[in-house]
């Protein structure tokens, strides 16, 4: 369970997160949506202490994260970066195996895990010795997901993980991840500005605007409409898509 209590963060007098209270029960798939500058990524990074909040506490399974060494905390949480963030000088296998390596797991065990993870994210084993620059965009995203899962974390944080992909690979990868999430019993928190993607993936959607949570609910409920016009405006896109698809299909 991830708990944020009264979390605030600001830069140069400008508030990015204002008094955030959020509880994410174990096993859920929560998607944070909002426009640019809404504070989604900042919120995500406070969970694994990449960003320290100015006020408030973040705790995981009842333990406050500021009481844990940041590097130890981060090794226990998978993280997929917005711009993939693979190490350009390391092979695919080295990238995937990095956190286990930091944890001191032996090489044979790491090799076995890498092999399994490549299978899990549906990449051919032959890619293991390639460098990130020798992969396609979709392959890189899959490697990033595999890396996030390598130390068998119970929580995975993802920042626009499928952003740079074409719609087909994007849908496929999102589906594959959703399956992994269920199989591995993960708690997943994903950030996206794409509400359609949020609707397809999430158990629960949290909408951020101007550093505050303005809506929090299951996708179906949010699609019905909301009192806050900012939330409504966001969910207008999937609603219109749905209407148009029905019209076209009906005609």
């Amino acid at each position, binding site marked *: 369970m991830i708990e944020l209590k009264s979390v605030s963060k600001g830069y140069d007098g400008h508030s990015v997160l204002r008094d955030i209270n959020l509880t994410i029960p174990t096993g859920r798939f929560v998607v944070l949506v909002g426009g640019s500058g809404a504070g989604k990524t900042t919120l995500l990074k406070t969970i*694994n202490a*990449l960003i320290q909040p100015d006020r408030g506490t973040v705790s995981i399974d009842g333990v406050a994260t500021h009481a844990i060494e*940041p*590097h*130890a*905390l*981060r*090794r*226990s949480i998978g*993280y997929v*970066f*917005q*711009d993939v*963030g*693979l*190490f*350009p*000088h*390391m*092979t695919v296998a*080295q990238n995937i195996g*990095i*956190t286990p390596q*930091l*944890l001191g797991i032996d090489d044979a065990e790491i090799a076995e895990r890498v092999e399994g993870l490549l299978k899990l994210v549906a990449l051919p084993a032959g890619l293991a*010795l390639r*460098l990130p620059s020798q992969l396609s965009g979709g392959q890189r995203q899959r490697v990033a997901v595999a*890396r996030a899962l390598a*130390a068998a974390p119970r929580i995975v944080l993802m920042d626009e993980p499928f952003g740079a992909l074409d719609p087909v690979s994007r849908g496929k990868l999102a589906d594959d991840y959703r399956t992994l999430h269920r199989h591995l019993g993960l708690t997943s928190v994903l950030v996206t500005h794409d509400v359609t993607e949020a609707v397809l993936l999430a158990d629960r959607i949290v909408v951020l605007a101007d550093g505050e949570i303005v809506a929090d609910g299951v996708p179906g409920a949010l699609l019905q409409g909301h009192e806050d016009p900012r939330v409504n405006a966001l969910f207008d896109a999937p609603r219109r898509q749905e209407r148009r698809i029905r019209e076209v299909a009906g005609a």
Partner: protein
Amino acid sequence: MHDQLIQALRLLPDRLAWHVILSASALALACALSLPLAVLAYRHRGLRWPLLGFSSLVQTIPSLALLALFYPLLLGLSALTKTVLHHGFSALGYLPSLLALSLYAMLPLLRNTMAALDGIDPAVIEAARGVGMTAKQRLRLVELPLAAPVIMAGVRTASVWTIGAATLSTPIGQTSLGDYIFSGLQTENWIDVLVGVAASAVLALVVDQLLARVERGLGASGRAGRAGTRLGLGALAVVLALALSPLLIPAAGGGYVIGAKTFSEQYILAELTAQRLERARAHVARKLNLGSAVAYRALAAGDLDVYVDYSGTLWTNVLGRTDNPGREAVLKQLTAELKARDGVTVLGPLGFENAYALAMQRNTAMRLGIRSLIDLTLVAPSLRFGSDLEFTSRPEWASLQTAYGLKFGQIKQFEPTFMYRALEGGEADVITAFSSDGRIAADNLLVLPDPRGALPPYDAVVLISPKRAGDSRLIGALGPLIGKIDAETMRRANLSVDRDTNKVSPAEAARSLGDSIGLPR
């Protein structure tokens, strides 16, 4: 010419080895200092400006001056450790060269390392934090490997600079390829100069190419990259071990260390001293091409055992005297005062003077009606004065100006060899000649008399270091030279080395000189 080349090449292994050891250790020391400093400045931005400022400042000091400045500094330190720890160290040669060259190599290393670290994609650094690396792991696993190719480019620049600048360590007593260049320029032995220049250029090119290979290895990431990094680190360790080894060798190797300043007469007398000592079955080491002030201080500090200096030089530069009580009195007072002050023994005069004297082409002097320094004063404002590198900053020049009111139209400084050439070629009208120089007679020059005695006497005297003061083998070997070499004999020997045709090496000239004063071979 063939013989000269063979003679030059015979000295190559020793000089090249020292050049490599010196350059490599200076580079290793510079890396060992610069890399951590650059990483520190990368973490703490406030350090960047002072670090880059300091290393840029060092770069603006001419390298020869930087090398020369380290000698007195280390001499002071050595004296301090001798009093405090009862264990001094040799401030001549290796150590000052190493430190000066290392400082010099720091700028490209610091600049490239900082730029390389700053140039890493911030997303990659955040990813390193995100996967759970500590700051140290981030540096070792991500930042340094990614910065390595640019850092290596800095190492390449630094190594080429260092190999070039290492030739300048010769005047502070470090054997290097610069020995060829300095003595070659003095004796107009162009083969020597070319051998020195070519050897250091080839060395620089080879090292640059090898490092380029390592750089490409580092650029190729993954497994090959890691192998490259390991190779580099291994090489660095080897180099450091090499760097420290010369310090383990006792400075004098148990033998006698003979010094010489940078001109032909000094080389010949050093060789003559060496031949006398070798005949007495003593081991000798030579430190030729020392700066004028370096030589005396090195002798007083015990880094040299014996060399020949000139009474007037010691009188004015060491004792700071400006009066001129006459040849005998100067010698007598000098002997007493050097002993009392520094424990240095003046074994005795060789018999000839090598005085500073102003000289002109004989026909120019006749045309202008100049017969002495008094006549010169009248026309000096329309004349060009060619001085050697030190004369105009010596007290003798001040006393000449006071005694005669000399004022030249223009003053230019030359290496002694080029000073004679300038007079011959008409670029200078008056020069600071040396009275024992063979070229005075050969070029038909007029040495202008000094009727007011402004210039002190310059008797060549054999000096012995404090720790060899009672050394009977040394005194026995050199005693027979005292009072035996007259000016004409010395001039002949000097000319045989300096002339354009039928040149002989200083060692051969020393043998002939020994024969002519009746010493057994």
